[in-house]
């Protein structure tokens, strides 16, 4: 009976620093650890004593890939604390900004980080030598997402135009209308992306996921909605901490989450699509059907197709918002000045899944307590489950292909390690393996 350990010290093509260790005893996978060694940065601690209005800009710095998600969750949590509802054109502009981030983040992951796995290249630059048109399309799509964030946010990384209550400056109708040709050009690129990735070879895998995402009244979820699952859960954001529990494991700087009573769960594109497919836009719906995407995708490798469908959705949604846009009377809604502490929480859909923020703010407007639960901390345990199943199926593989397969299984979920600290390197340990 041999014991072996497989190890990857530094996962590539993920955002942030992580590693993986798998310990195998004979034909039993004894332990799977996704180790997040990204250094802790203590956001929840230093948010204490900061002004409530500072939360969107400070928390944006948790992640350079999805700063808008942090800004949106922070703004909505503060507005709920102060009992202010932001609606109308400001709400639509927020959605438009989020479309920009979904397009940019998904195109980055799909073309630059994930597609090379399927076509057998170490990166997009080497992929571009043999598939120049595909990579050029991907970069063009990503650029449209970034340009949209620049237009509304001032810049693509850590946008400067978002504030609690709305924006500093709302764009004119003409400024948005001038952007229409770029979105129109992105439509065929997004459609070509869905067709391209739907034609890839996928390993035959089915996982039994508990999918958790927001579900909104009449739209694909971004900034609001109830928290729902494919196992009958339906709660408001206020009940999130009662339903889901974060805990600490010795091998990781990221906290892990479980659904109390049922264990690991999955957030992100697969969950959003499974629970909100009926809310997709016309072309995204038609193309998902045309390429034969099932109503619920349980093969994690096919997440690349779901991401492509969401890119197409975000482009169509951006066009819809842009065409209907009438500037708001004021760029932001003022917050009241209460004489007592307030608290509020909110969940929005970051490209990688639900992002929870909760704050308590004192009567002086200074934050007294903050809690942030990032999508990758929620997915971390579920990714470990995927890996355990993968290794159990692949015990006869040699070390190198098994290690590659593990890294691919991790990239399926687009983990964002920078976000999770509060994530990742691969150590596949088969004891007695000579390593």
């Amino acid at each position, binding site marked *: 009976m041999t014991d072996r350990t497989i190890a990857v010290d*530094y*996962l*590539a*093509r*993920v*955002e*942030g*620093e992580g590693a993986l260790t798998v310990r195998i005893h004979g034909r039993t996978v004894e332990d799977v650890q996704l180790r997040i060694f*990204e*250094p*802790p*940065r*203590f*956001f*929840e*601690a*230093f948010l204490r004593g*900061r*002004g409530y209005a*500072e939360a969107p*800009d400070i928390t944006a*710095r948790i*992640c*350079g*890939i999805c*700063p808008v998600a942090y800004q949106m969750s922070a703004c909505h949590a503060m507005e709920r604390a102060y009992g202010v509802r932001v609606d109308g054109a400001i709400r639509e502009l927020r959605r438009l900004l989020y479309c920009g981030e979904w397009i940019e983040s998904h195109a*980055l992951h799909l073309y*630059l*980080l994930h597609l*090379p796995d399927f076509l057998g290249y*170490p*990166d*997009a*630059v*080497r992929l*571009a030598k043999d598939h120049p048109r595909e*990579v*050029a399309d991907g*970069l*063009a799509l*990503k*650029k449209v997402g*970034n340009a949209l964030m620049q237009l509304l946010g*001032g*810049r*693509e*990384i*850590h946008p*400067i*135009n978002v*504030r609690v209550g709305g924006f*500093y*400056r709302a764009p004119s109708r003409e400024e948005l209308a001038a952007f229409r040709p770029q979105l129109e050009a992105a439509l065929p690129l997004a459609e070509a992306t869905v067709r391209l990735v739907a034609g890839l070879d996928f390993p035959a895998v089915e996982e039994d996921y508990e999918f958790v995402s927001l579900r909104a009244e009449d739209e694909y979820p971004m900034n609001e909605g109830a928290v729902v699952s494919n196992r009958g859960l339906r709660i408001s954001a206020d009940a999130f901490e009662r339903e889901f529990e974060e805990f*600490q494991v*010795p091998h990781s700087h990221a*906290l892990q989450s479980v659904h109390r009573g049922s264990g690991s769960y999955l957030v992100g594109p697969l969950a959003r699509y499974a629970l909100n497919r009926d809310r997709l836009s016309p072309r995204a719906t038609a193309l998902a059907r045309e390429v034969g995407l099932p109503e619920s995708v349980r093969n994690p490798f096919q997440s690349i197709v779901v991401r492509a469908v969401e890119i197409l959705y975000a482009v169509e949604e951006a066009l819809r918002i842009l065409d209907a846009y009438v500037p708001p009377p004021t*760029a932001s809604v003022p917050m009241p000045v209460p004489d007592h502490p307030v608290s509020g929480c909110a969940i929005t859909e970051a490209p990688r899944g639900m992002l929870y923020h909760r704050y308590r703010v004192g009567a002086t407007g200074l934050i007294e307590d903050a809690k942030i639960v990032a999508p990758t901390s929620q997915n971390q345990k579920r990714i470990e489950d995927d890996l355990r199943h993968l290794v159990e199926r692949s015990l006869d593989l040699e070390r190198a292909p098994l290690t590659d397969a593990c*890294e691919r299984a991790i990239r399926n979920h687009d983990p964002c390690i*920078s976000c999770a600290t*509060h994530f990742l390197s691969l150590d596949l340990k088969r004891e007695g393996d000579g390593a």
Partner: protein
Amino acid sequence: MPRTGRPRLGVFKFASCDGCQLTLLDCEDELLPLAGAVEIANFHEATSAELDGPYDLSLVEGSITTPDDARRIREVRAESRVLVTIGACATAGGIQALRNFADVDEFRRLVYARPEYIATLATSTAIRDHVPVDFELRGCPINKAQLLEVILASLDGRIPNVPTESVCVECKRRGTVCVIVAHGTPCLGPVTLTGCGAICPAFHRGCYGCFGPMDTPNTPSLVGRLTELGLDAGGVERIFRTFNATAPAFRAASEAARAGAKGP
């Protein structure tokens, strides 16, 4: 792997949000030509291929916050002909340097139920506090055009053409109306290094100092104006204590505000 003759580029990450190295991938039009001109030899976020050093140019993102990272940066320096730090974390410790003003053990207890699992230093420090740095590119995040200029200049062996003036100068050049003068909005533009394109005032908000202090800033004078505009001592302390809180001029301004609030 044999050397191709193209300069080798390494990208290294320490404590950070990944935004500054993402800036390189955000150069959608320039990424493939750049990858033809240099050999991307080490860039974990973008490639699983990893080539050995030495590297002709290393871009370093993030600050030093753990004992292991303090050791790793010395290894990166030893492998790098030219080492350029990118972004506020690498050049000034970043937002996570707010721990330098607090008790890190308390921070650890606040965030983690089992603080003993967490290896961290009491401070978050800039890369130049640990190893010699050839050029520092500032910003939270860095500016794309400036990054390309720094890469090209470093490979050509010349000094990068990166301005050292304040955001105010850029506002005048853009023709942006002054938000302090016209709207009474508190703004760090007079003491902050340009490079962002002076975007905040163009969006009707005050500069919040994400590029850190310009050369020889007159912070006491600006603090007087900020106070007239209604910022209390706590507000002044906080406005200088964000992404470049440990940059000397900003640190001095925030500490003066704190001392003033406490009285003589």
